[in-house]
């Protein structure tokens, strides 16, 4: 019998709402125990809901089946190689999940009196100290919920810093290689973005930087940089860059998404950065969860410290025999205030602190080393044979933890877009690299293997790329129509935006 579709393809998508049947239920609730007073006697009728929301009606066994089956329609890090550039898809230790689930963490109320949450506050303080040491900056706030939230925090800190000095600056510089969140954060913080060009080795174009600083004299509030940047290139001019920005009175912001390249080897603070955000869901092994949760703590220099968000976790030395104690400090007159509720994504802090404890000083340095080794090895493998020809490296030099290839020749010579290569990789069981970013490289493919991959996986990936390019020479249609074996095949994304259907329609 010829297979027309895979078993998963044969199973058409049905939402849980479509599996609902009136009268079924999974939840049994505790008895009310107290008088069953009609609700309308407790809350005025006009404030009450008429119809219960049409949530699915379905018993527990089918709920479990629904989501278990759905889960298998995802590719995940525990299934295979996931070299998604800029995302640092490293192994997620289950130990971290175990410790985060301890009731002392998981069922601790965020408004618990600090006197009765000493363990949690100490953990946060220890994580702050660890990140401070790793970043080379003295002060840390754990509050931001993710990288982009950290960026916004950093820009608001910059604003507060300038305002405190009686200045109001309007521009923020960012290289054309910067991640989309950078300019987006700049606008949200009420600044205007000024792009800085990239030089022939992938770093900041120094002359353009000088020019932009001159053009916008007195207006430049900040320069946002990623180092190594999104090309995987470490900017050797960083010292000079810092000097120029500080001379111009601006702050230097470090987008920490690429910190995994330099842990224990080089520190943003030592490079001259004033503000750093760290993506705990990248370098510090918080699982990505299909798009979060994460956390984006920030580390800052002394001059920025007074403006840090409220509250801050503080430690006071123990007096007469008592050990040190920990508290939340709200009394920070110059603070930019809160960026969110309570104290931040504590559950993420537990996981990342467990990760730091597990690896320790040597382990973190070794992780970065291996990340860089793996990236350079895969780069070397992809410089061979067909890949070397059709997918040249954008900036030919040693990379740090990731590198960017250009699919331009492949497109020109085989008519295959980077997207086609990516989709065909799906049939080989690999998650494709990040595509079409950074923008300044045409047909960009951004590859970040991370330290937790084996040489065997890197080799298999390089072989797959080679094979796809070989196929492409004889039969380019193969890749153009890929994928073939995924639960669904190429999807119409235009339709989804032109006539958006963003919820299940329900009867009655």
């Amino acid at each position, binding site marked *: 019998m010829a297979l027309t579709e895979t078993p998963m393809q044969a199973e058409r998508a049905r939402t849980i709402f479509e599996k609902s049947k009136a009268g079924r239920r999974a*939840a049994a609730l505790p008895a009310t125990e107290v008088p069953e007073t009609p609700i309308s006697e*407790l809350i005025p009728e006009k404030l009450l809901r008429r119809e219960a929301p049409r949530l699915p009606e379905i018993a527990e066994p089918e709920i479990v089946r629904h989501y278990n089956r759905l889960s298998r329609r995802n590719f995940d890090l525990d299934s295979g190689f996931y070299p998604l550039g800029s995302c640092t898809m490293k192994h997620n230790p289950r130990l971290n999940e175990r410790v985060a689930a301890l009731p002392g*963490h998981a069922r601790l109320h965020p408004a618990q009196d600090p006197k009765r*949450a000493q363990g949690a506050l100490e953990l946060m303080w220890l994580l702050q100290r660890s990140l401070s040491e790793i970043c080379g900056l003295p002060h840390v706030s754990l509050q931001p919920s993710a990288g*982009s939230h950290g960026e916004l925090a950093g820009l608001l800190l910059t604003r507060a810093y300038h305002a405190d000095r009686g200045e109001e600056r309007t521009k923020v510089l960012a290289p054309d290689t910067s991640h989309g969140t950078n300019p987006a954060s700049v606008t949200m913080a009420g600044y205007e973005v000024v792009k800085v060009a990239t030089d022939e080795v992938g770093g900041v174009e120094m002359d353009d930087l000088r020019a932009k600083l001159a053009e916008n004299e007195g207006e430049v509030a900040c320069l946002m940089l990623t180092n190594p940047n999104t090309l995987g290139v470490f900017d050797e001019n960083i010292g000079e860059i810092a000097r120029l920005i500080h001379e111009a009175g601006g702050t230097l912001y470090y987008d920490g998404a690429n910190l995994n390249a330099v842990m224990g080897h080089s520190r943003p603070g030592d490079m001259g950065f004033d503000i750093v955000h760290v993506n705990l869901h990248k370098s510090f092994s918080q699982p990505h969860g299909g798009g979060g949760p994460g956390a984006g703590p920030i580390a800052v220099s002394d001059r920025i410290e007074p403006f840090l968000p409220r509250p801050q976790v503080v430690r006071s030395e123990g007096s007469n025999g008592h050990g040190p104690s920990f508290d939340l400090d709200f009394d920070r007159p110059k603070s930019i205030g809160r960026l969110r509720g309570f104290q931040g994504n504590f559950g993420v802090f537990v996981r990342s602190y467990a990760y730091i404890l597990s690896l320790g000083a040597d382990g973190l340095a070794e992780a970065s080393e291996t990340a860089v*080794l793996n990236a350079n090895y895969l780069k070397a493998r992809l410089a061979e044979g067909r890949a070397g020809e059709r997918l040249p490296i954008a900036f030919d030099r040693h990379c740090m933890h990731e590198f960017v290839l250009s699919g331009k020749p492949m497109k020109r010579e085989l008519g295959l877009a980077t997207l086609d290569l990516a989709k065909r990789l799906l049939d080989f069981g690999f998650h494709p690299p990040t595509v079409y970013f950074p923008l300044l490289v045409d047909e960009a493919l951004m590859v970040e293997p991370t330290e937790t991959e084996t040489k065997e996986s890197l080799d298999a990936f390089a072989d797959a790329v080679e094979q796809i390019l070989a196929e492409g020479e004889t039969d380019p249609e193969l890749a153009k129509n890929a994928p073939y074996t995924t639960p669904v095949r190429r999807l119409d994304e235009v339709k989804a935006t032109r006539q958006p259907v963003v919820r299940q329609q329900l009867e009655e």
Partner: protein
Amino acid sequence: MTRYTSATADDRREMLDAIGVSSVDELFEQIPPELRLGRPLELPEGMSESEVYERLAALAERNADAEKEVSFLGAGMYDHYVPAIVDAITSRSEFLTPYTPYQPEISQGGLQVMFEFQTAMSELTGLPVSSAGLYEGPSSLASAGYLAIGATKRRRFVVSRGVHPHSRETLRTYSVGYGAEVVEVGLEGGLTDAAALADAVDGETAAVFLQSPNFLGAVEDVEALGAAAKEHGALLIVACDPMTLGVLKPPGECGADIALGEGQPLGNRLDFGGPSFGFFCATEAQIRRMPGRIAGETEDVDGRRGFVLALQTREQHIRREKATNNICTAQALNALGAMVHLAWLGRQGFRELGELLVRRTAYARERLAAVDGVELLHEAPVAREFAVRLEAPVSKVLDRLAERGIAAGYPLGREFPEFEDGLLVAITERRTKAQIDELAEALSAAVAAEREGVTV
């Protein structure tokens, strides 16, 4: 080699040869020498798995969590029971470990969950469009402000004092950035002062922010209060507690343009405040201004139903400085937890739970009001939380109850100087009648003791 890496000595040799360098250090030479750390980080050495476990278990032991004590703490996050299937499903690698679904063909699981979640939140709030989830409550409210500016081109916000203090403070923090003025309207008898609100709203007002039940637990008449906003073409933005929406009229039926809030009560544990998620629903008119991911339905080349990230042109990775928001990594896994919890509760269970909360809260409010030295802070209707005044120093009373293994509630003093003597008490289905009675009894004893100056 750590236990998470695989490069053996042999591997390293082969790899370095292929790269054409003699050592890994050579690869780090692109970092200027003066910027290389050149010393080990000042952190402890790595530990074995069991040692890390023991260390963190010891820290956890030092927290008074809701497993150890009876907690009436709320103020935005609540000790609801998270059904076991939520953990079973959210802990599956296939949901736990992927990145944001940039490759939809291999991310249908996560994308369909987003679509289901959007449907559920849309049902709860009575608004047609839902984002797939934002960070958490207060920052979602601040993001709504950013949307309002874009939608109205105005820069003035009118905010009820009944809105969670964390949300108000976060809105202020953000407003300094995107440039907006925040005007606050006070409370009367626990509810937003309607007259003051009407006065505060004008043609320059971008949005009116309300919360119901508000921070003091009072159920606001959103429809009536919202009229002022409608009149002046300002957006009506309503923060709400999803657990009350089985019983309370949904914001969408009260004229809200945006309904949002803290999602923790749905399928997310307390976690000392996070990670949870923020929900964000709006009218069709706002669909292209929404913050965050939105999944949409479409078809594949063979006509199979499928889901993708829709309307990405709103987002930072496409629109960069023109994006409707800077949010990227958000809370997909937490939204999944909420969806599973909602499916588990189901249409009937969700309503029943809401009614259970209203009834037990009414009972608890009555019991406490009857305690000598305790009186209601307001008489407004409540759904799952209420405020009282104590005729004794709140913090001292709380310490006394903590001694008895009870976290009696949230002291209002810091954020509401006008309620220095105020205590906010929250109820969940985990708080039994017996525990409520115990609270009343313990509170009465503690207040009495304080008044008589008995020392602990």
